[in-house]
């Protein structure tokens, strides 16, 4: 008799419940954050007002009126967009070269790139601070873009490399036979074929840039500060103003959550390295 795998009805329901539970567990901090942002600082620390309280927009009004939210948001957009664009501009040719013209050391180069992610950022804090100050680049958009681009480049190249490896080499060779140069191969064949992967990579890179806090807090003061700096700046020495801090945090993560929501299909595809067939 043929053996057929049986899927138990209860097993399926159990998995669904588990998935929802995990999902809610991850979502809860965000939910709490948003909830708290509508409380006064006094209500925010009182357990009895956890769910039932008088909502207020004061924190948001205060944030936009007194803390110049839009300037920080603008800086976040500028630095994240440019760092992503530059990351792709460098990453696409790099990944193309390693995927289609590998040398003996390609694997070593890839591992080396990844190994740079293992370096604790704090280890290079002083050299970086001195370097940026002595070059006159401290607190400039250029410096923030450069740092964000460089710290994400290994991930960008790895992701793109994995996508490009899925494209049959013969298609690129057919392009060579058909008379295209290297730039033509990238523009006419590679980018259209790997478009999904490139978009996923760009999205992920943008999210990483947006959320980056270590360097954006330490290498900026006013002019190039991003939303991370705004959150950090709302940490008062006498204690945390939870309502205010929650509003700032919610406004900082809000755009990226909305972006992620709209692009979730692309993101899942990106993280599972969907193949081009």
């Amino acid at each position, binding site marked *: 008799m043929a053996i057929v795998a049986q899927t138990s009805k209860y097993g399926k329901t159990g998995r669904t419940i588990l998935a929802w539970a995990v999902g809610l567990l991850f979502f809860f901090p965000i939910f709490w954050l948003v909830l708290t942002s509508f409380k006064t600082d006094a209500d925010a620390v009182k357990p009895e007002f956890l769910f039932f309280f008088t909502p207020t927009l004061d924190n948001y009004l205060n944030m936009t009126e007194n803390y110049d939210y839009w300037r920080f948001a603008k800086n976040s957009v500028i630095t994240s967009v440019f760092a992503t664009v530059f990351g792709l501009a460098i990453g696409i040719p790099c990944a193309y070269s390693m995927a289609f013209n590998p040398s*003996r050391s390609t694997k070593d180069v890839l591992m080396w790139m990844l190994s740079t992610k293992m370096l604790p950022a704090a280890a290079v804090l002083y050299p970086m601070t001195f370097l940026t100050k002595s070059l006159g680049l401290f607190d400039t958009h250029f410096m923030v873009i450069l740092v964000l681009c460089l710290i994400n480049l290994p991930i960008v190249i790895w992701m793109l490399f994995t996508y490009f490896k899925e494209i*049959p080499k*013969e*298609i690129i*060779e*057919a*392009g*060579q*036979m*058909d*008379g*295209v*140069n290297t730039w*033509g191969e990238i523009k*006419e*064949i590679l980018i*259209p*074929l790997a478009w999904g992967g490139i978009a996923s990579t760009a999205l992920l890179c943008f999210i990483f840039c947006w959320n980056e806090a270590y360097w954006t807090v330490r290498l900026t003061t006013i002019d190039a500060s991003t939303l991370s700096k705004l959150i950090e700046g709302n940490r008062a020495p006498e204690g945390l103003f939870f309502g205010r801090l929650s509003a700032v945090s919610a406004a900082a993560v809000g755009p990226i959550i909305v972006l992620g929501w709209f692009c979730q299909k692309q993101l899942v595809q990106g993280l599972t390295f969907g193949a*081009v*067939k």
Partner: protein
Amino acid sequence: MGRIVLEKVTKNFGDTQVIPPLDLTIEDGEFAVFVGPSGCGKSTLLRLIAGLEETTSGKVLIDDQDVTEISPSKRGLSMVFQTYALYPHMTVRKNIAFPMRMAGMSEEEQNKRINAAAESLNLTDYLDRKPGQLSGGQRQRVAIGRAIVRDPSAFLFDEPLSNLDAALRVGMRLEITEMHERMQTTMIYVTHDQVEAMTMANKIVVLQAGVIEQVGSPLELYHKPRNKFVAGFIGSPKMNLIESDEAKKHGATTIGIRPEHIAVSDSDGIWKGTVGVAEHLGSDTFIHIHGIDGCDPLTVRAAGDVSFKHGDTVYLTPDETQIHKFDDMGLRID
């Protein structure tokens, strides 16, 4: 024009030499087939001509011009790949137009050539489809169409029919041969299938371990194989190679006799054996016979209506004029 000359070409992958120094000339308008077992270097050789692999040393000349250092796109050759290598994001029309667009050809001329190619390859109804919506045979036709429109000095085919089913393969084989007859352009075709080599080529290049074993017309290779390897590789079913006292009687280390040059009888003959398997193909019967000293099993090609079966005793008589003799180095003795 499309005369291709390889001069002392070698290719190393790391420390391994896959093509030892090799000389070869393919004349303009020839249909040359590179044939040999897997890993013999035939595809590498084709890729060296295409420019997709760099030569380690030696020269590649196309129409007397040294193209060794020239990129594939500037060699004026077209290539058809085993996996079709169509651009999946483009329609058939755009796939075929691609090389012309890259060459900056006018749209009017592009359309003229696309329509002509589509008509000759029966693709007119599929021009607006994407490769994913086509069958294997249609995809291969698109790949050929894309190669034709460039008007290349030579076509390179890298096992183009390997991914097709048997019936389609025969049809496409005829189409490519007819295309060559019509266009009279140089074609270099790589295959491991000796039937394709025999039926399509003007010139067959038999390769083993990167070395050319023999170059010649199909019938030259069939009638006068230069060594045991070529003798065994060309012809279907394979030539029977006998190494025993029978060979010594003919003054050779090995003798070869093709299955079609042995007469089989149930009553009299020089060699006696027992039928192992009889394969009835209708037009022919391939009988595999055991018990022949120095060659087990020995294959005989008999008429389609013979009725030998497993275990029957048979008597064989080789045609003495068709016996090939080879020395202890495996080379032909004339």
